[in-house]
Protein backbone atom coordinates (compact mmCIF):
# COMPACT_ATOMS: atom_id res chain seq x y z
CA UNK A 1 0.00 0.00 0.00
CA UNK A 2 1.44 3.36 -1.01
CA UNK A 3 1.29 5.69 1.95
CA UNK A 4 0.56 8.56 -0.40
CA UNK A 5 -2.99 7.31 -0.91
CA UNK A 6 -4.23 7.54 2.67
CA UNK A 7 -2.17 10.70 3.15
CA UNK A 8 -3.80 12.44 0.20
CA UNK A 9 -7.25 11.28 1.23
CA UNK A 10 -6.59 12.62 4.71
CA UNK A 11 -5.36 15.93 3.32
CA UNK A 12 -8.47 16.29 1.21
CA UNK A 13 -10.72 15.42 4.12
CA UNK A 14 -8.95 17.94 6.30
CA UNK A 15 -9.34 20.67 3.68
CA UNK A 16 -13.01 19.88 3.34
CA UNK A 17 -13.30 20.14 7.09
CA UNK A 18 -11.59 23.52 6.96
CA UNK A 19 -14.04 24.69 4.38
CA UNK A 20 -16.96 23.48 6.46
CA UNK A 21 -15.72 25.20 9.60
CA UNK A 22 -15.22 28.44 7.75
CA UNK A 23 -18.25 28.44 5.52
CA UNK A 24 -21.10 26.84 7.41
CA UNK A 25 -23.50 28.97 9.37
CA UNK A 26 -25.17 26.39 11.55
CA UNK A 27 -23.12 25.54 14.60
CA UNK A 28 -23.93 21.85 14.40
CA UNK A 29 -22.63 21.75 10.85
CA UNK A 30 -19.47 23.40 12.09
CA UNK A 31 -19.14 20.66 14.66
CA UNK A 32 -19.54 18.05 11.92
CA UNK A 33 -16.78 19.70 9.93
CA UNK A 34 -14.57 19.55 13.00
CA UNK A 35 -15.26 15.83 13.14
CA UNK A 36 -14.18 15.55 9.52
CA UNK A 37 -10.90 17.18 10.37
CA UNK A 38 -10.39 14.85 13.31
CA UNK A 39 -11.05 11.87 11.11
CA UNK A 40 -8.52 13.06 8.61
CA UNK A 41 -5.98 13.08 11.42
CA UNK A 42 -7.07 9.60 12.47
CA UNK A 43 -6.56 8.28 9.00
CA UNK A 44 -3.08 9.71 8.97
CA UNK A 45 -2.29 8.17 12.33
CA UNK A 46 -3.43 4.73 11.24
CA UNK A 47 -1.63 4.88 7.92
CA UNK A 48 1.67 5.93 9.43
CA UNK A 49 1.35 3.38 12.18
CA UNK A 50 1.08 0.72 9.51
CA UNK A 51 3.95 2.18 7.54
CA UNK A 52 6.31 2.40 10.50
CA UNK A 53 5.30 -1.03 11.86
CA UNK A 54 5.36 0.23 15.40
CA UNK A 55 5.34 -2.62 17.85
CA UNK A 56 3.72 -0.49 20.51
CA UNK A 57 0.94 0.53 18.10
CA UNK A 58 1.20 4.10 19.26
CA UNK A 59 -0.58 5.36 16.12
CA UNK A 60 -3.61 3.20 16.52
CA UNK A 61 -3.81 3.72 20.26
CA UNK A 62 -3.67 7.45 19.71
CA UNK A 63 -6.44 7.06 17.16
CA UNK A 64 -8.54 5.42 19.79
CA UNK A 65 -7.82 8.23 22.21
CA UNK A 66 -8.72 10.81 19.57
CA UNK A 67 -11.98 9.07 18.90
CA UNK A 68 -12.80 9.12 22.58
CA UNK A 69 -11.85 12.74 22.91
CA UNK A 70 -13.87 13.57 19.81
CA UNK A 71 -16.88 11.88 21.34
CA UNK A 72 -16.45 13.94 24.52
CA UNK A 73 -15.95 17.05 22.46
CA UNK A 74 -19.13 16.46 20.52
CA UNK A 75 -21.02 15.92 23.75
CA UNK A 76 -19.76 19.15 25.26
CA UNK A 77 -20.11 21.02 22.02
CA UNK A 78 -23.70 20.00 21.64
CA UNK A 79 -24.38 20.97 25.24
CA UNK A 80 -22.95 24.39 24.50
CA UNK A 81 -24.99 24.65 21.34
CA UNK A 82 -28.15 23.77 23.24
CA UNK A 83 -27.40 26.35 25.95
CA UNK A 84 -26.78 28.85 23.21
CA UNK A 85 -30.03 28.01 21.60
CA UNK A 86 -31.88 28.37 24.86
CA UNK A 87 -30.42 31.85 25.36
CA UNK A 88 -30.40 33.21 21.85
CA UNK A 89 -32.98 31.18 19.97
CA UNK A 90 -30.40 30.76 17.25
CA UNK A 91 -27.39 28.65 16.54
CA UNK A 92 -26.17 30.67 13.55
CA UNK A 93 -22.57 31.37 14.19
CA UNK A 94 -22.43 34.65 12.30
CA UNK A 95 -25.16 36.04 14.49
CA UNK A 96 -22.98 35.67 17.52
CA UNK A 97 -21.07 38.92 17.42
CA UNK A 98 -20.18 39.57 21.01
CA UNK A 99 -16.56 39.80 20.00
CA UNK A 100 -17.28 42.74 17.72
CA UNK A 101 -16.10 46.14 18.79
CA UNK A 102 -19.21 47.94 19.95
CA UNK A 103 -19.92 50.94 17.75
CA UNK A 104 -19.94 54.42 19.17
CA UNK A 105 -17.66 53.71 22.07
CA UNK A 106 -15.55 56.76 21.28
CA UNK A 107 -16.36 60.19 19.90
CA UNK A 108 -16.24 60.15 16.18
CA UNK A 109 -14.32 62.85 14.38
CA UNK A 110 -16.60 65.23 12.51
CA UNK A 111 -16.88 64.31 8.89
CA UNK A 112 -15.44 60.87 9.26
CA UNK A 113 -17.78 58.02 10.11
CA UNK A 114 -15.83 54.86 9.82
CA UNK A 115 -18.61 53.02 11.60
CA UNK A 116 -21.27 54.47 9.40
CA UNK A 117 -20.29 52.27 6.53
CA UNK A 118 -20.51 49.12 8.53
CA UNK A 119 -23.78 47.33 8.39
CA UNK A 120 -25.42 46.19 11.50
CA UNK A 121 -25.22 42.48 11.04
CA UNK A 122 -26.96 41.92 14.25
CA UNK A 123 -30.16 43.55 15.25
CA UNK A 124 -30.12 41.70 18.53
CA UNK A 125 -27.26 43.65 19.98
CA UNK A 126 -29.01 44.79 23.17
CA UNK A 127 -29.94 41.24 24.09
CA UNK A 128 -26.48 39.96 23.45
CA UNK A 129 -25.10 42.48 25.81
CA UNK A 130 -27.38 41.08 28.44
CA UNK A 131 -26.31 37.50 28.68
CA UNK A 132 -23.33 35.82 27.15
CA UNK A 133 -23.14 32.10 26.42
CA UNK A 134 -22.97 30.04 29.51
Amino acid sequence: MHIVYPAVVAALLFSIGVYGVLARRNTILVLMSVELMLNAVNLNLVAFDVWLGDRLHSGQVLTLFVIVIAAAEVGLGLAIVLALYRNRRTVDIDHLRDLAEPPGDRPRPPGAHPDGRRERHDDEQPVQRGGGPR
Partner: protein
Amino acid sequence: MTEAVPSYLSPTGQEIVFLLLGAVAVGSALLVVTTRQLVHAALWLVVCFGALAGGYLVLTAEFVAWVQVLIYVGAVVVLMLFGIMLTRAPIGRSADLDSGNRVVAAVVAVATAAILVTVVIDGFRTAYAPLTPGPGSARELGASVFATWVLPFEALSVLLLAALIGAIVLSRTDIPGGEPADPPDDLSRSTPPPDQTGGH
Protein backbone atom coordinates in the same frame (compact mmCIF):
# COMPACT_ATOMS: atom_id res chain seq x y z
CA MET B 1 11.04 0.47 3.52
CA THR B 2 12.09 2.66 0.68
CA GLU B 3 13.58 -0.14 -1.33
CA ALA B 4 11.76 -1.69 -4.20
CA VAL B 5 8.82 0.63 -4.38
CA PRO B 6 6.22 -0.90 -6.63
CA SER B 7 5.03 1.16 -9.51
CA TYR B 8 2.03 3.39 -9.11
CA LEU B 9 0.79 2.19 -12.49
CA SER B 10 0.04 -1.31 -11.29
CA PRO B 11 -2.04 -0.95 -8.16
CA THR B 12 -2.81 -3.92 -6.04
CA GLY B 13 -6.35 -4.90 -5.18
CA GLN B 14 -6.01 -3.44 -1.68
CA GLU B 15 -5.03 -0.11 -3.11
CA ILE B 16 -7.94 -0.08 -5.51
CA VAL B 17 -10.36 -0.87 -2.72
CA PHE B 18 -8.81 1.82 -0.52
CA LEU B 19 -8.94 4.40 -3.26
CA LEU B 20 -12.59 3.64 -3.92
CA LEU B 21 -13.38 3.92 -0.25
CA GLY B 22 -11.35 7.13 -0.08
CA ALA B 23 -13.27 8.53 -3.02
CA VAL B 24 -16.54 7.70 -1.28
CA ALA B 25 -15.30 9.32 1.92
CA VAL B 26 -14.11 12.51 0.21
CA GLY B 27 -17.25 12.75 -1.89
CA SER B 28 -19.59 12.28 1.03
CA ALA B 29 -17.51 14.76 3.07
CA LEU B 30 -17.96 17.28 0.29
CA LEU B 31 -21.67 16.67 0.43
CA VAL B 32 -21.61 17.15 4.19
CA VAL B 33 -20.22 20.65 3.80
CA THR B 34 -22.27 21.62 0.79
CA THR B 35 -25.72 20.09 1.22
CA ARG B 36 -28.63 22.38 1.88
CA GLN B 37 -30.36 20.07 4.29
CA LEU B 38 -29.14 19.65 7.83
CA VAL B 39 -30.29 16.13 8.30
CA HIS B 40 -28.78 15.12 4.99
CA ALA B 41 -25.51 16.46 6.17
CA ALA B 42 -25.63 14.23 9.21
CA LEU B 43 -26.50 11.25 7.07
CA TRP B 44 -23.70 11.97 4.61
CA LEU B 45 -21.44 12.12 7.59
CA VAL B 46 -22.45 8.57 8.39
CA VAL B 47 -21.47 7.51 4.89
CA CYS B 48 -18.16 9.29 5.18
CA PHE B 49 -17.34 7.71 8.53
CA GLY B 50 -18.37 4.31 7.24
CA ALA B 51 -16.10 4.62 4.25
CA LEU B 52 -13.28 5.66 6.57
CA ALA B 53 -13.94 2.62 8.72
CA GLY B 54 -13.58 0.53 5.57
CA GLY B 55 -10.32 2.30 4.88
CA TYR B 56 -9.07 1.39 8.34
CA LEU B 57 -9.97 -2.22 7.66
CA VAL B 58 -7.97 -2.20 4.46
CA LEU B 59 -5.07 -0.70 6.42
CA THR B 60 -5.31 -3.75 8.76
CA ALA B 61 -6.48 -1.60 11.71
CA GLU B 62 -9.54 -3.62 12.36
CA PHE B 63 -10.12 -2.67 15.98
CA VAL B 64 -9.94 1.03 15.15
CA ALA B 65 -12.40 0.38 12.33
CA TRP B 66 -14.95 -1.16 14.68
CA VAL B 67 -14.50 1.55 17.22
CA GLN B 68 -14.99 4.08 14.44
CA VAL B 69 -18.23 2.49 13.48
CA LEU B 70 -19.41 2.14 17.05
CA ILE B 71 -18.55 5.54 18.35
CA TYR B 72 -18.73 7.80 15.34
CA VAL B 73 -21.51 6.26 13.41
CA GLY B 74 -23.36 5.00 16.44
CA ALA B 75 -22.90 7.74 18.96
CA VAL B 76 -21.57 10.96 17.52
CA VAL B 77 -23.85 11.20 14.54
CA VAL B 78 -26.83 10.27 16.65
CA LEU B 79 -25.86 13.03 19.04
CA MET B 80 -25.69 15.40 16.11
CA LEU B 81 -29.15 14.40 15.00
CA PHE B 82 -30.44 15.02 18.49
CA GLY B 83 -28.79 18.36 18.48
CA ILE B 84 -30.40 19.21 15.17
CA MET B 85 -33.76 18.31 16.48
CA LEU B 86 -33.37 20.06 19.80
CA THR B 87 -32.42 23.31 18.12
CA ARG B 88 -35.57 23.01 16.02
CA ALA B 89 -33.60 23.39 12.86
CA PRO B 90 -35.64 23.23 9.67
CA ILE B 91 -35.82 19.71 8.38
CA GLY B 92 -36.24 20.53 4.73
CA ARG B 93 -34.06 22.53 2.38
CA SER B 94 -32.87 25.78 3.76
CA ALA B 95 -31.02 28.35 1.75
CA ASP B 96 -29.02 29.92 4.54
CA LEU B 97 -26.80 27.11 5.72
CA ASP B 98 -23.74 28.85 4.33
CA SER B 99 -22.53 32.06 5.85
CA GLY B 100 -21.22 34.97 3.84
CA ASN B 101 -17.73 33.77 4.50
CA ARG B 102 -18.02 31.15 1.76
CA VAL B 103 -15.66 32.56 -0.79
CA VAL B 104 -12.93 33.21 1.72
CA ALA B 105 -13.47 29.75 3.16
CA ALA B 106 -13.21 28.18 -0.28
CA VAL B 107 -10.01 30.00 -1.04
CA VAL B 108 -8.46 29.03 2.27
CA ALA B 109 -9.59 25.42 1.96
CA VAL B 110 -8.33 25.03 -1.60
CA ALA B 111 -5.04 26.56 -0.62
CA THR B 112 -4.81 24.24 2.35
CA ALA B 113 -5.56 21.24 0.16
CA ALA B 114 -3.05 22.29 -2.46
CA ILE B 115 -0.29 22.81 0.02
CA LEU B 116 -1.00 19.65 1.99
CA VAL B 117 -1.31 17.45 -1.05
CA THR B 118 1.79 18.92 -2.61
CA VAL B 119 3.82 18.46 0.50
CA VAL B 120 2.49 14.99 1.19
CA ILE B 121 3.13 13.75 -2.32
CA ASP B 122 6.50 15.39 -2.33
CA GLY B 123 7.44 13.86 1.00
CA PHE B 124 6.04 10.33 0.82
CA ARG B 125 6.33 9.52 -2.83
CA THR B 126 8.58 6.59 -2.08
CA ALA B 127 6.90 5.42 1.12
CA TYR B 128 5.46 1.95 0.83
CA ALA B 129 4.08 -0.36 3.48
CA PRO B 130 3.30 -3.97 2.74
CA LEU B 131 0.07 -4.93 4.43
CA THR B 132 0.10 -7.98 6.64
CA PRO B 133 -2.97 -8.81 8.76
CA GLY B 134 -2.66 -9.08 12.49
CA PRO B 135 -1.09 -6.07 14.15
CA GLY B 136 -4.33 -4.13 14.29
CA SER B 137 -6.40 -6.84 15.97
CA ALA B 138 -8.20 -6.24 19.25
CA ARG B 139 -5.82 -8.57 21.03
CA GLU B 140 -2.67 -6.82 20.00
CA LEU B 141 -4.10 -3.39 20.58
CA GLY B 142 -5.62 -4.34 23.92
CA ALA B 143 -2.30 -5.64 25.12
CA SER B 144 -0.61 -2.48 24.04
CA VAL B 145 -3.17 -0.21 25.64
CA PHE B 146 -3.19 -1.93 28.97
CA ALA B 147 0.55 -2.38 29.11
CA THR B 148 2.30 0.56 27.58
CA TRP B 149 -0.46 3.12 27.37
CA VAL B 150 -2.32 2.41 30.57
CA LEU B 151 -1.50 5.75 32.20
CA PRO B 152 -2.86 7.90 29.32
CA PHE B 153 -5.80 5.55 29.21
CA GLU B 154 -6.64 6.25 32.86
CA ALA B 155 -6.13 9.95 32.35
CA LEU B 156 -8.52 9.77 29.44
CA SER B 157 -11.13 8.20 31.68
CA VAL B 158 -10.83 11.20 34.03
CA LEU B 159 -11.23 13.47 31.01
CA LEU B 160 -14.35 11.65 29.99
CA LEU B 161 -15.72 12.09 33.49
CA ALA B 162 -14.99 15.81 33.35
CA ALA B 163 -16.70 16.07 29.98
CA LEU B 164 -19.67 14.21 31.35
CA ILE B 165 -20.04 16.55 34.30
CA GLY B 166 -19.48 19.54 32.08
CA ALA B 167 -22.18 18.47 29.69
CA ILE B 168 -24.61 17.96 32.54
CA VAL B 169 -23.82 21.33 34.07
CA LEU B 170 -24.19 23.06 30.73
CA SER B 171 -27.42 21.35 29.89
CA ARG B 172 -29.36 21.58 33.11
CA THR B 173 -31.28 24.72 33.83
CA ASP B 174 -32.15 24.09 37.46
CA ILE B 175 -28.66 24.33 38.94
CA PRO B 176 -28.54 27.37 41.22
CA GLY B 177 -26.55 30.21 39.66
CA GLY B 178 -26.32 28.34 36.43
CA GLU B 179 -29.20 29.68 34.49
CA PRO B 180 -31.15 32.84 35.03
CA ALA B 181 -34.69 33.09 33.83
CA ASP B 182 -34.96 33.88 30.16
CA PRO B 183 -35.26 37.58 29.48
CA PRO B 184 -38.74 38.52 28.31
CA ASP B 185 -37.63 39.70 24.91
CA ASP B 186 -35.87 36.41 24.46
CA LEU B 187 -39.17 34.66 24.88
CA SER B 188 -40.93 37.01 22.55
CA ARG B 189 -38.69 35.95 19.74
CA SER B 190 -39.36 32.43 18.68
CA THR B 191 -37.44 32.04 15.44
CA PRO B 192 -34.07 33.20 14.29
CA PRO B 193 -34.27 36.61 12.69
CA PRO B 194 -34.61 36.65 8.94
CA ASP B 195 -31.26 38.29 8.56
CA GLN B 196 -29.79 36.99 5.34
CA THR B 197 -27.18 39.59 4.76
CA GLY B 198 -24.27 38.13 6.64
CA GLY B 199 -21.24 39.23 4.80
CA HIS B 200 -18.89 42.06 5.35
